[in-house]
Every structure is written in C-alpha cells, then in structure tokens.
C-alpha cells in the first residue's frame, strides 16, 4: 500500500501549481483551470485521509466539492463569456473597474 505521505505530497504539489497559476497568469481561463487544480488537490487529500481513517465522510465531501466545482465552472464560464463579449479580452488585469 502506498503510504499516505505520497498522496499528501502530490496534493501539495498540485495545489501549489494551482496557486502559482492563479497568481501569475493573467488569462482568466487559465486562472480558472488553476482553481480547478487546487480543488482537485484538496479532493485528493480528502480521499487519501478518508481511506486512512476509514471513514466515508471525506469521500462525501469530495462529491460536494465536485458538485460545487461544476456549478462554479458553469457560472464562471458564463461570466467569462460575457466579459469577453464586452471587453474583447479575458485578461484579468484589465478588469480593474472596481478599483477604489
């Protein structure tokens, strides 16, 4: 059996990739994908721990996360499409009209 550490490390790597992606990329789609990456990193950790402590609650959470992520994608993509329609671009740095 693969030790749980490996999963954790993989999860951490995926998560970090996601974070870095969100922080350095300007393309909204990429940011979106990075977020998905983070979510799935978390999912991985959930499943791993779930099997270690022999409880289903972790897996149930994963289903929730997947469901939420799907909803988020639906809303998020719709927003991105709308933004693209008005701005002709999906560069997030150009979307700074909320600047205080």
């Amino acid at each position: 059996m693969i030790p749980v550490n490996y999963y954790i490390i993989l999860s951490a790597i995926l998560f970090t990739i996601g974070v870095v992606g969100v922080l350095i990329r300007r393309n909204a789609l990429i940011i979106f994908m990075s977020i998905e990456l983070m979510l799935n990193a978390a999912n991985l950790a959930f499943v791993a721990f779930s099997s270690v402590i022999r409880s289903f609650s972790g897996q149930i959470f994963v289903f929730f996360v997947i469901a939420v992520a799907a909803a988020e994608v639906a809303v998020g993509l719709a927003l991105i499409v709308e933004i693209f329609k008005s701005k002709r671009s999906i560069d997030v740095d150009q979307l700074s009209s909320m600047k205080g």
Partner: protein
Amino acid sequence: MHFAQEASTGFFFLAPWLVFAPLVGLLINLIFGQWFMKQPWGENAVGIVASLASGAAFVVSILLTSSLSANHGEVARWYLADWIQIGELRLDWTFRIDSLSSIMMLVISGVGTLIHIYAIGYMREDVRFKNDVGRFPRFFIYLNLFIAMMMILVAGDSYMMLFVGWEGVGLCSFLLIGFWYELDLLGRTSWSNSNAAVKAFVVNRIGDFGFLIAGFIMFWALGSFQFDEVFEAAEGAAPGVILAITLLMLVGVAGKSAQIPLYVWLPDAMAGPTPVSALIHAATMVTAGVYLITRSAELYTLVPQAQYIVALTGAITALFAATIAVGQYDIKKVLAYSTISQLGFMVAAVGMGAFVAGMFHLVTHAFFKALLFLSAGSVILGVERGHHHLAHASGHHGSKHGKNKGKKKEQRHEPVHEEEGEHFDAGDMRNMGGMRKTMPITYWVYLIGALALAGIVPFAGFWSKDEILLDASLHYPLIYWMLTVAAFLTAFYMGRQIWMVFFGEPRHEAAAHAEESPGVMTIPLMVLAALSVLGGALNLPFEGFHNLGHWLEYTLREVESLSFNAPVAGIATVLAVVAIYASWLIYGRSPLRAGEVDPLKKRLGSVFTALQNKWYIDELYHAVVVTPYMKISQFLADVIDWRFWHDWFHENVIVGTYNWISHIGLNRYADQRGIDAAANGLATVTQWLSVTLRQIQNGFVRSYALSVLLGVVLIVGYLILR
C-alpha cells in the same frame, strides 16, 4: 364592587335609559340632523327629537322616583357593566337610585326638557341673527349630550363614575360656550367666545385635579371609590386623611360650582347661547358641586374643620359675587354673578351641614334662575328683533342672505351687522328700558323670577334661602351675617335690573320696537314661573311640611328639621324689601335716560368702577397665573429645550464627544464643526477608513488572491507554530 341587582322590583331596570335616552336623541340628530335641516320642517324635527329624548329621561326619572318611593326610599342599584378592574381597583358602571339622586334627576331632566323646548324657539332666531342656520342641530346634539353626562354624574354609584359625568358636563360646557366660536358676545368676529370656552374647560380641570387627588387618597386610604364602602371605611380612618379628601374635593367643587377662587370662568361662560346659560350655567351643571358635597355628607360631617372651610368659602363667594353683580350692565352678566352668589349660598349651606337646605335651594334656584335666564334670553331676542325691525324699516337691507331665500319667516331677520358703525349690544341693560309694555309676558315671568331670587314671601326662593339663613343663624353667626348682606345685595341688584329693563322709557330705538317671543318660548317660561311660585311648598318650615327633608332622610343619615323662626325670616324679608326700595330710589324714581351715567356710579365713584371691572380679579389671574405660565413655557420651549437641549447640548456635548473620540482615534484632519458636525463626524471616520483601505482595493483580482494566500499562510502558520 359587584352588587347584585338590588331592589329589582319596580322600574329600576330603566335606570340606564337615563343616559341612553338622550344619547339616542343625540345619535338621531347627529346622523339625520343635516338631512332634517334640508326639509321645511327640519328645525322642528331636530328640536322635537331632542326634547323627546330629554323628556324620556324625565319620564324615566319619574318612574324611578315612584319605584323608589314604593320601596320606602331603599337605595337601588343597577349594574350595567364593568369598567376598570385591576387588582383591588374595582370600578363599574352601576347606577344608583336613591332619594338624593332622584331629586337631581328630576330637576335635570325636568328643567332640561323645558329648556329644550324653549331652545327650539330661541335657537331658530339666534342662528338667523348670526347667519348660520346649519348650526342648529349641533346645539341640540350638545344639549342631549349634556343631559346624558349630567345623568351619569348624579346617577353614578362611585366617585369615579361621578367623575366621568363631572368632566363630561365640563366638555359640554366647553362646546356650548364655544357654540358661536368665531364671534364675541356682540356677534363680532373675534376669538373671545372660544377663549371663554377654553377658559371654562381649563379652570374646571384645575378643580378636577383636586378631585382626582382626593380620589387617589380615598382609594389608598379607604380602599374603594364606591360611595357606601367609602363612607363605611371613613369612620375608622384617620381624621387627617378625611380632612385632606374633603378639602381637595372642595377644590373640585370650587371649579365646577364656580366658587372662589375658581369662579372666574362662569361670567365668561355667558358667551354661550342663553338656553345654555340657563340649563348648564345656572340650573344644573354648576350645582354638581353642591350635589357632590351632599353626596359626601358622611365624609364632611366627620371633619368639622373642613365643613367650616366649605361654609366660609360659600359665604365669601356669595357676598363677593353679589357685590360684583351690582356693577354689571349686561343683563346676563348680572344673572351670572347672581348665580355664583346663589351657589355660594348653597355651598355655605351644605358646608354648615344643612344639606336639606342646600338641596332645597338648589331645586328652587334651578326653577327661578332658569326662569330668569330664559326670560333674559327672551328680552335679548326681543331687543334684537326690534333692532332688526328698525334696520329693515329704515332700508338697511342685508344683502347676503343666500341660505334662507324664499322663506317668508326669515325675511324679517336679515343680517345688518356690517351696516352699523358700532356694534349694537342687545344684552346691555343701558339699551333697554320700558319693556314691560312691549314684552308683557316676559315682564311678568321675569318679575316672578326676580322676586323669588330676592327672597320675597311666598315665592320659592324665600323658603329655601330662609332655611339656609336660619341654619346659619343657629350655628355660625359670622356666616349668617355675610349671607344676610349677600341677600340684601341680591334683592338690590335684582331691583336695579327690573327697573332698568322694564321700567322707564326705552333708551334705544331697538328696545322701543321690541317684540314679544313666540309661544314655544313663553310657555316653558310660564311653567317655570309657576314652579318658582310654588316650589317653596317642597319643604315648608312647618311641622308636617318637611317633604324634601323626609325624602332626603333616606339618603342622609341625620337631617335637621328646623321650624319657622320669625326673627330670621323677618330680618331677611325686611332687608329684601328695603333693598328693593333702595333700588327704586336710585333707579326707579327717576329712570335712567339714554347716555346717562349710572346713578350708582355717581355716588360710589371708583368703587363702582371696581365692581364693574369685577374687582380686577381676571386681570390679577392673568398677571399671576396665565402670563407667567405662558412665559415659562415659552422660555422652556425656546431657550431650555430648543437652544440648550436641542442645539447646544446636541452639538457640543453629543456631537462634540463623538467628534472628539473620532479625532483622537482616527483622524486629525477633520475639523469641520458645522451644524452637521454629527454627519461630518461619521463621514470622517468612514473617509479615513476608505482612504486607507482603497490602497488595497486596486481592482486586480490577482492581488486579491495574493492577499488571500497571505492570509491563509498566516493562519496555517499560526496553527502550526502555536
């Protein structure tokens, strides 16, 4: 306090109809009054409905009295509903029929009905002289309301139910005094009548304040408001408590029954139409105080000091008001001061413990004073008719007469006010004279009333006044002499009035052309005149004739039956005759001519001026009470409340503190201290925050994400390193 329906045999179940009957009349006129007025017979319908309502109350009173007499005067109660019930406080709507309240009911509804009938005729003309026919039904609505309230007052079984009526009649008085609210006594546009109305209400409220406080003491010391329970508990109570209750109640009496020092509203109350003066301000409402003291006889007899103070108040009032009456020119003002004076007689009587005498005088006074006022009203209208007749004849046609177009009857009374250079005062005795020829019926009934008031044998007033004087002579010599002097003055000013109004030559064209009043007015006058002649038979000071005394014995525990005392009666009669003779010497022998100065004024000089100005009491009150109160409230409102609390305190203390806090902690730039400093204070805080925070709000999603990350790192770091 729940009594079973006691003494349920007889007509006692009708007791609530004492109140309901007038209320039904009120409602009919309230709802249909305006519709009635559109019909040709409208005024009669309104008047008849109201009179029937009052008459129904009279019938109920008679039935109740007969049942009471069949039950040998045993007190009867009729419980209608609960009122206020909290803990030990148990107030309900219970009617009490005993010999005392039955007398009051009979007087109120009997005299009241006569006055209702008279008012049909009087108001029909009054509303036309004052040019507002539409106001006719309102008068009868008020009158019916008054009867209902007065019935609650006298038929209530507790001090608080009495108080409901007590204030209720005050309200009716207010409404009726202010009936011509936009005019003054002479019919000019003015605030004067409405001021009189407000004055009456407020002064009455001062008295009611005393009554209320007496009630509070009563409840907490004696445990109840119900008459019998109070009297029972009073016997064991500390005399100091009873003294306080009775004296505070006297304040209430002084307000309602126009005694010193609260009498000042009554003369002004003459602003009301004359039937009102007769009904409310002479015959019934103002005697409520006398009724209250008689009702509380068992409290007053426990504390002789209070009795003496009551008697003294009454006697001083009787004398004081009688002096003022001598110096008045307005026919109604003379009667008003005379009423105050006679009320003083009654209060003095009940104060001395002569409750029967007081009630007796109350009844006879109701007859002859109502008679006097109503005939005075007849005189005034007569002069008014003459005045309008004149204006008509000399071609001064009123132009504005829209409402009454096409009705023959009203053509006579076209408004002529504006054409006159100065306003004609139809109530001024200096404008009258010689009216016994033009108004013979009125003259005769007036004479009867005046003789009754002056106390001439065998008119009603003689017997009742004699009984009071007799009682005073036995126990309180000082009061006896004061009352005797007052009686002398009474005869004098009545003589003066008779000579000035009915004898001599007319001093004004209007008086010369005066016309007699119609039957609807004179018939009630004749009934009242008959009562003024015969009323004395109620309680003659001879063995076997103490009818009223025996009747009241059922309610009052001890009743003194005095027998005729020749010296007292003799002195009173001789003095009255002398007074009338003196008035003849001054006013009758050489009658006053138009424009001439009052002969008494020539003799008395400045004293007469003082009398004429009512001893300047109104001015005194104005200076001591009214103006200071207005000044104080103005000061409180403008300076203390507005400038100090509202502006200074708010801006400096509250807003200042707020700003100070915000300055110290947050912002050293904000320095605006305008009126809206509060807003600025709030804004400053927010502004500082936003200036600071906007640095963070750069609109770049990625930087937000970075801060989220930093936050996560911090929290996770804290959790790990903890």
